[in-house]
């Protein structure tokens, strides 16, 4: 099967390391030289890095309360209502 560079998308973390490679038909390929899909990818990516690179953005801190914060809020509410 002949793959094209457009078949693959390299997902990089914020430090530039490969997290995985998205291939055709929903493939998610680990960067391991023994993996035959990674071998397919390397054959088309070549040293010139012909496949697209996408940096995964750093996660944004959530504004939603954490589980711990929710429990604490619930405990505070119980204390406020019951006094104990």
């Amino acid at each position: 099967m002949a793959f094209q560079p457009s078949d693959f998308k390299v997902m990089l973390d914020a430090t530039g390391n490969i997290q995985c490679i998205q291939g055709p038909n929903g493939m998610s390929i680990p960067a391991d030289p023994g993996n035959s899909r990674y071998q397919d990818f390397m054959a088309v990516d070549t040293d010139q890095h012909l496949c697209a690179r996408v940096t995964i953005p750093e996660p944004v801190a959530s504004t939603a309360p954490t589980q711990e914060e929710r429990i604490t809020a619930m405990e505070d509410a119980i204390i406020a209502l019951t006094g104990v």
Partner: protein
Amino acid sequence: MTYTPLPKLKKNSPGTTLTAGIADTATTIPVAELAYFHDVDGTLITAGIVIGADNANETYAEEITITGASGVSGAGTLTGATRGVNADGTIGAARAWDSGTQIAVMITTGIYGKIRGDLIAKAPYTSLPNRNAIINGDCRVNQRVTAYTLVKDAYTWDSSDLYGPDRHEGMATGTAVSAGTWGQSTTCIAGNSGYGFKFAGVTLTGTGILYHRHRIEAKDAVRFKNQIASFGCKVWHDVGSNINYTIYIRKANAADNFSAVTAISNSGAISVPTATATTLKYENVSMGDCSNGIEIEIKIEAGTVTLKNFCQTELQLELGSVVTEFEFIPYVQAIAGCLRYAYALGPYGAVTNYHPYGLKAQTATIEIPILFRTRMRVPPTLFTSSPAPVTVNPSGNQYTIYDRVAAGRLTPTTTVTISIASGTQEFTPLFFVASTSWDGSIGDGVFLQLGSTCSFIFSSEL
């Protein structure tokens, strides 16, 4: 070393005598009693015959083989004698013998050599477990369930590992490949179990050819390095006329990398009659240095066919110069072998309930750790059936993320990408990343629920 059956001996190895003197070149040996050269079944004993059997100096005795006798009992002649077999210089060499010299069937150097040769050729491999290097050779394991719809010139896993039986691939070629699938059969006529690999309902035009391929990883191929090996399988087809099958054995040029291979040898065309379960054997193959991995391919010259079927089963590659009976292993061992190359979550044929647990790791990311059942060959590739996330009980090719804390199904905003990170051979995280966010709270425990045809295949196939 080739297996050759041993001759039966006479009880107590009774001897008789030469009835006339013989020269060292004589090939006809006159004896007083021919019955002593026939076994209990009346079969002529052709090896292990010693002239001078009672000689005090045993190195003086001469071993011969024969091809015939003038009768089965009484006085007569042994014919077609080869003299001085297994001689060591002058010891045991052909010589002239006097009339009255003892001659008998004995345990000779030649018989000892046959026993040794037979042990080397056959005994160790017919009795030892795990002699078959082909995993899932009888196709009982079919984790992916879904058959592969044949695509011209494309092997099963050339584009997606979601299809076909474990560890084996099928391909079709021809002027056109109009119909056909590659999958598991439970009604295979060849073999004993009913299970087999099947090209079903195949329609090809022009010079139609089918291929069945199996690859053996380097760690298992090393035992064949510079050894003699034999391959066998059982096949069946309903083309309506004889067609040719050819077995090809190749080796990978680099360890576990089959993008370039080198031919070891092939069987040449073997004619297989229609509608007849047939055993194919390719024996006594010098494997050379095949330690990078082995590829076996069965080529089926189907020709122009319409809606025909082809079944292969009981594939076995083993050390030794002969093909032995197929090694039927317990199912638990068969599937354990396959799990090193593929681990499947689904398809289960019905909606699942409490599947692997994970958590909402980040605003947009659900993370579910996947622990493999055995050490996979390499960190595997994830293949999905591209299921759609839903917020109701999933059906068909759907899935849902259920939040155990909020006791409800999570809704993504909006599209979801399913991926893995570069995990290990034992573990990988499975990510469901929404383009913006998932509802629910970070840290919530979640589980994955699959519809009946939804599947996630973790594959490290070769």
